[in-house]
């Protein structure tokens, strides 16, 4: 039993809930090294995504992921809008017209999404961005894939994302708004890496068949 549109819908819904519940946290992380809007940006976008999906539920994984990406792009703005938007658009491209994704398919889609983030944002490892959570996550996913279990792979990915997120704290930012702070960006956890970790954690919690 693979991952279908309904599973993806569950994931996106859980991500939206988590983002909304953590809006203050994300904003206060962004206050320290940015402009105090990451929570608001993500909450606004994910609420719009959920409203859109409810109003007009897409039937296929690709349609759903595309809808999510397009909605984020047109409602978020800032850095996170294009980045998360591109992430989902590239996932949509990756899944093609499949009705269900197997474990490898999920991994390929996530990797395509992360590649999209890099294509758009040019971040490298250690720049102190969401990429520092996403990149280890897809690597861990692929490494765990040998085991064959979706739940296991996603759990490994989520743990790696959290580790990557935590590892952003001592870094000096080289991309995004935090880079303006130079050395003063050291010692603060990156807000985008934090929301990206929610993304992978909610995938681990929702995508494996319940």
């Amino acid at each position: 039993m693979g991952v279908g549109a309904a599973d993806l819908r569950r994931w996106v819904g859980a991500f939206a809930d988590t983002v909304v519940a953590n809006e203050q946290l994300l904003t206060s992380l962004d206050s320290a090294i940015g402009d105090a809007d990451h929570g608001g940006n993500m909450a606004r976008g994910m609420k719009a995504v959920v409203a859109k999906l409810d109003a007009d539920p897409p039937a296929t994984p690709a349609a759903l992921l595309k809808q999510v990406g397009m909605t984020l792009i047109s409602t978020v703005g800032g850095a996170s809008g294009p980045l998360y938007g591109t992430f989902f658009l590239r996932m949509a491209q990756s899944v093609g017209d499949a009705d269900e994704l197997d474990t490898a398919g999920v991994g390929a889609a996530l990797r395509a999404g992360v590649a999209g983030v890099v294509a758009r944002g040019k971040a490298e490892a250690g720049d102190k961005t969401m990429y520092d959570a996403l990149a280890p996550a897809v690597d861990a996913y692929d490494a765990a894939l040998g085991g064959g279990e979706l739940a296991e792979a996603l759990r490994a990915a989520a743990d790696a994302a959290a580790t990557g997120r935590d590892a952003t704290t001592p870094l000096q930012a080289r991309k995004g708004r935090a880079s303006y702070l130079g050395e003063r960006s050291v010692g603060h956890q990156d807000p985008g890496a934090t929301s990206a970790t929610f993304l992978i954690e909610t995938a681990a919690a929702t995508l494996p068949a319940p």
Partner: protein
Amino acid sequence: MKKLINDPADVVAESLQGIAAAHPELRVDHTNKIVYRADAPVQNKVALISGGGSGHEPLHGGFVGPGMLDAACAGEVFTSPTPDQMLAATQGVDGGLGVLHIVKNYTGDVMNFEMAAELAAAETGVEVVSVVTDDDVAVQDSLYTAGRRGVGVTVLVEKIAGAAADAGRDLAAVADVARKVNAQGRSMGMALTSCTVPAAGRPTFDLPDDEIEIGIGIHGEPGRRRVQAMPARDVARELVEPILADHDFTGSGGVLAFVNGMGGTPLLEQYLMYNEVAKLLDAAGVRVVRSLVGPYITSLEMAGCSVTLLAMDDELLQLWDAPVRTPGMRWGV
């Protein structure tokens, strides 16, 4: 947080309604949050759009009108607008000669405008050229960072490129003069207090009563250094010296000297700062040929100021002096 607002989520939309009500010479697309000059699209003129997060008013909506921008896209507070908005504005202003996108160098602004330009190329026949401003010397510039922020020089780019478009130049030439202004302009800012993003509900940073931030941008982000509060003459030195160290402004064309209030600093103090800046420039052999003092690119209610210098020449002087008629900057008409 005390602000003259209703729901924080509605601040931008309701402020745009106020602009629409107050300015019959502008037209506001409330769905897309775009401020147009009422007669857009102007045929046979290169059109200029800009946009960015709200909270920097009068930039950008207040600079829409003859001689400056054709339209401005308003994002949420401190959040770049989306590609949809920029695409709609691009199509709404094109008068057949193409559209210049004036983009402040922030990751979000750059990516969203990039996507808008891609969409314009893919979905419309409108020719788009983008110019990115990045004049803030507080930020280290390097290939491996996001580069410098676009701040005060953006105002000057919008005015001067707007005049170039009015003078009938083509898109490439208008973009060239915009790039020239950016290349010849440098800025540096400081804050006495933080601002409060309405949705965040509390000050972005806490600044003790005896400390100030040097090297801030226009989004309430903390600056490069936090230092003891100091007299205006020393603040002026903190701002002017890095600018002069970064670029030669002693050329015979002189400079436009621009002291900008960040939103919460009285005009009384802005002129006092201008006095300090003028004295430093004089001592450094920099000749001021034009000046601008006031809150033109702000950061909500932040107290503080920034200094922008632009190396002038006859071309820039003429374009600067050309008529402009916008809510935020007006002369000659």
